[in-house]
């Protein structure tokens, strides 16, 4: 597909951008830099109670009895809730949506009634006058758990006679993709290369653990001010409380990091139950330890590739077998699995594809959303496999990729034509070039380089029928207000909306105030997940602003005695560029408009492409609105005697369509580089019999500033995406290629591969000995 055939690009090709595309100081910058930003944990109320959650420290067992009478009798304890107090209450674990779709039988018990399925499953909720009293009450709850045999790995969970964690057979999701004829494809191949790659449980490790404050107001509405990516869980909370949906309101605050870990219901459920029971404000702040055991993790995956390839390096067939550990509850596992299956072939043209995947329940911690959402694990496998193929064939690794890359206009393995530019090759070329001259090896210190390219969706699965709303208005003094439910999880989601409105309404970002993240008051924008916030809500703001602009321009044309197509809005002025005598300030325009009854606001909804679900047997059909393509390249030094790895250079090059704020994009690429480095080299949640034995940052090893090289960010702009001004998404994509790039660089340095993440020094030493 040429640029001319991409409708969006054509429409925007000649626009002069005044606000968009500039590294403006974000609206949230000053508050954060000065410490004035109020996060959810900074809110208090008079008469507020302090909550605590009692959890099981055993992964599989039977709660024989639980007696809270001593805790309830402690002075200062206002409420202890157990399963006995919540008859028939369940909580949803599904993806919240705007269309009322919800999977059957994925609800979970709120508090343990009898069977404990994972370490950390909640037994009781406490609300007390002070945190210290809540702590004492915690110690006074008496209970007995009878351990039961559990199952802790996915293979064992499929054995006949294995303990059943999820009825009927521990399989919580399966997806298939069938394209072409793999038998024929393998017959055409000169080489068949088979490898299995494993990834580990990891933790989101946001700076701000889960926290919130709930109260019941004078209208009987349960209000919850909290740290979340998803204010629209209010519906699931209302269902769990047994009240109408309009009786629960979730107010966000600036969020100290999400990464998918604040996508599912967290503290809001417990807060709502305790506020409803006590009719007093209740605050619940997780400690770091609570956070480690209190929310779902990234799925460990086992991904086996069998690739047929000609001696010239053309891939003729691909078979992939995928299994994921879903832990003890369903949550988003089937969707994460689908992402992995769809992503499994990578950004490559492969005519014959057969993919089988299953998510399997165990008594490990449940797994759910995590930046990259299954597609990141897929990339760990397909990019390692590309290097292994190149090694077998004796072909340059980058040349092998070039011979197989998808090009603009190509279809994915599910038969979806990608509507936007596919610049995987361009991104790889630029990333490699930015690595510069190779560092010299010295003695046992070997130098290696690696890249990983990727195809990663942005926007939600298209049969979710995703929508987003925003409201844009101009005040009588010419200043602009944006209202949208979007939650800002630290990436500048709110500020970007301001930049879009400023661009279209001819004001500066300083002239815009954004009100966001209130499920009752701001127009609902959906979740800040799936790399969708800028794409979806940005488009809603774009539409609302454009409509408002059109009306203002028409009114200004009347006032200036000009035609509407002659009038421009910029720098706080409405003016005719060719006639300096015809101009007026936006302030005067808005004030005149107000006195004439001009509508000064617009509410707009953006609808993503809506499709039907893909075919169950073949997986054929569109799955996502669109995809981002890019590449991460690294250079590492490996001490071949101790196995220590130092990342020397780290470059991310991504086609993001159009940067709304390039500085915010760099922030995403840098953050992705750090998170991916931890995923590759050091981060791992260790479960023994389902019990987390590394619930602290002294054992769970995130890279420190000492471990990070300077990160180079290269932003390519094809202006071909579905987002505002042709933007694509970068939140998840920036992370996806980092770990496989590092894995490939280590393999390049040492001449052999570690197939299991994280690539610890010890695994490197072992691989070198073998």
């Amino acid at each position, binding site marked *: 597909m040429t640029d001319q055939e991409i409708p969006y690009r054509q429409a925007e090709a000649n626009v002069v951008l005044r606000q968009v595309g500039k590294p403006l100081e974000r609206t949230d910058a000053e508050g954060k830099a000065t410490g004035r930003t109020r996060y959810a944990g900074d809110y208090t109320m008079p008469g507020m109670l302090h909550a605590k959650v009692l959890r099981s420290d055993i992964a599989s067992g039977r709660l024989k009895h639980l007696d809270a009478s001593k805790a309830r009798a402690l002075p200062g304890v206002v409420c202890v809730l157990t399963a006995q107090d919540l008859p028939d209450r369940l909580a949803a674990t599904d993806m919240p949506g705007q269309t009322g779709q919800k999977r059957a039988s994925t609800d979970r018990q709120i508090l343990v009634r009898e069977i404990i399925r994972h370490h950390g499953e909640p037994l009781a909720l406490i609300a007390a006058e002070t*945190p*210290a009293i809540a*702590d004492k009450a915690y110690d006074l709850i008496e209970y007995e758990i009878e351990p039961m045999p559990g199952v802790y790995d996915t293979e064992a969970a499929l054995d006949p006679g294995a303990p059943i964690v999820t009825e009927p057979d521990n399989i919580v999701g399966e997806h298939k993709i069938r394209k072409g004829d793999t038998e024929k494809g393998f017959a055409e191949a000169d080489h068949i290369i088979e490898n299995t790659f494993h990834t580990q449980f990891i933790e989101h490790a946001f700076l701000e653990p889960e926290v919130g404050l709930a109260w019941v107001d004078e209208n009987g509405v349960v209000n919850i001010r909290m740290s979340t990516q998803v204010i629209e869980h209010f519906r699931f909370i209302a269902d769990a409380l047994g009240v109408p949906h309009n009786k629960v309101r979730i107010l966000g605050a600036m969020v100290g990091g999400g990464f998918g870990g604040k996508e599912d219901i967290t503290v809001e459920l417990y807060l709502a139950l305790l506020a409803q029971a006590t009719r007093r404000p209740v605050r619940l702040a997780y*400690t770091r330890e609570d956070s480690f055991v209190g929310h779902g993790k990234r799925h460990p995956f086992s991904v086996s590739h069998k690739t047929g390839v000609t001696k010239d390096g053309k891939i003729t067939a691909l078979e992939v077998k995928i299994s994921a550990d879903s832990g003890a509850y369903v949550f988003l596992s089937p969707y994460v699995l689908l992402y992995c299956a769809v992503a499994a072939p990578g950004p490559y043209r492969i005519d014959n594809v057969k993919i089988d995947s299953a998510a399997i329940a165990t008594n490990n911690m449940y797994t759910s959303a995590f930046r990259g959402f299954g597609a990141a694990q897929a990339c760990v496998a397909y990019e390692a496999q590309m290097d292994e193929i190149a090694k077998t064939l004796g072909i340059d690794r980058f040349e092998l990729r070039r011979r197989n890359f998808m090009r603009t206009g190509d279809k994915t393995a599910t038969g979806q034509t990608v509507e936007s530019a596919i610049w995987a090759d361009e991104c790889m070329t630029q990333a490699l070039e930015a690595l510069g001259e190779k560092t010299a090896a010295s003695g046992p210190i070997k130098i290696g380089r690696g890249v990983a390219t990727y195809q990663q969706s942005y926007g939600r699965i298209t049969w979710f029928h995703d929508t987003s709303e925003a409201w844009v208005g101009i005040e009588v003094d010419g200043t602009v207000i944006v209202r949208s439910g979007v939650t800002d999880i630290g990436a500048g989601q709110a500020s970007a909306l301001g930049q879009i409105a400023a661009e279209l309404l001819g004001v500066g970002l300083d002239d815009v105030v954004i009100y966001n993240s209130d499920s009752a008051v701001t127009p609902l924008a959906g979740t800040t997940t799936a790399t969708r916030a800028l794409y979806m809500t940005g488009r809603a703001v774009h539409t609302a602003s454009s409509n408002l602009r059109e009306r203002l321009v028409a009114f200004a044309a009347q006032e200036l005695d000009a035609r509407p197509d002659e009038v421009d809005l910029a720098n706080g002025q409405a003016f005719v560029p060719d006639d300096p005598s015809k101009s007026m300030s936006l302030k005067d325009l808005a004030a005149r408009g107000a006195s004439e009854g001009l509508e000064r606001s617009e509410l707009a909804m953006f609808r993503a492409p809506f499709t039907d679900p893909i075919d169950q047997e073949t997986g054929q059909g569109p799955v996502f609105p669109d995809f981002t393509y890019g590449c991460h390249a690294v250079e590492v030094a490996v001490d071949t*005697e*101790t*196995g*220590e790895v*130092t990342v020397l250079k780290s470059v991310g090059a991504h086609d993001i369509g159009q940067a709304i704020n390039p500085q915010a994009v760099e922030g995403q690429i840098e953050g992705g580089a750090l998170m991916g480095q931890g995923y590759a080299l*050091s981060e791992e949640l*260790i479960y023994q019999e389902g019990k987390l*034995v*590394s619930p602290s*940052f*002294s*054992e769970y*090893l995130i*890279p*420190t*500033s*000492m*471990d990070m090289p300077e990160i180079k960010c290269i932003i390519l702009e094809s202006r071909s995406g579905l987002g505002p001004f042709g933007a694509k998404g970068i939140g998840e994509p920036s992370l996806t290629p980092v770990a496989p790039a590092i894995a490939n660089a280590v393999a390049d340095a040492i001449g052999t591969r570690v197939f299991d993440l994280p690539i*610890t*020094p*010890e695994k490197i*030493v*072992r691989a070198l000995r073998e």
Partner: protein
Amino acid sequence: MLREFELDMPGNLQETLARLPGGTLLAGGTNLLVDLRARREDAERLIWLGNIDGFRDIKIEDGRVIIGGGTTIGDLLRNPAMAEAAPSLVAAARVFGGQMVRNQATVAGNVCSGSPAADTVPPLLSLDAEVHLTCSTGSRTVPLNDFYTGFKTNQRKHDELVTGLSWAAPGPHTANLFYKLARRKGDAITVVGVAVTVTRDGDRCTEARIALGAVGPTVFRAKDAEAMLTGEPLADDLIDSAARKAMEESSPIDDLRASADYRRHCIHVLTRRLLKQAWEDAA
């Protein structure tokens, strides 16, 4: 949440010594407060050591380095004389915890915590340091090499305070090195720590010390390996044999950070490397 405790804040050394019995010493608190919060420690009364005059002083007198019991890791790094007076200790200080921990944690606290992974201890053992203890009735000095009695146990009595540590600054033709092997470069718990001192007279090694951390119940000197080197020219073969001997003298365990096998392998590699480097540096 942090449990409740009494905080005793005596105004000087004499008051501190008088209140020692039954109390738990609070210096930097980088171990103690963490342990209290995690309920690994149940101290009821903490004695703060922040009011003792001159407790953070660092002095070098007649080639002997004396640091006060309250000297922090950061104090070592800010003292320009330390780079020569204790090269291995400065190397350890640079990779000790993170910046906030270095600001707060004390050398004496690190020594007394007794963790086999305590990063200042291999350097101090390689410098043959002494521990100065004082109680209300008098003072005594114990060689650091004799200080530990087992895993996290030592010779300090409950009424004693470590008022300082001292060692002879390395003389000419002496090299003193430290390497910390860990799972990441900042804020990490040591997997294997090795400190060596080599003194050279021409083509002979006159004295060698090898101290190993995180590979036994306490940090310890690999004396058999040291004995192989004393009086000898340190050829590569001999260095390798001594490094292997040091490995044999260790008794590492498997834990979340590394296996015992890997630790043994790295003792061999790192001891060999440091000895070779020290032998060259001492020339």
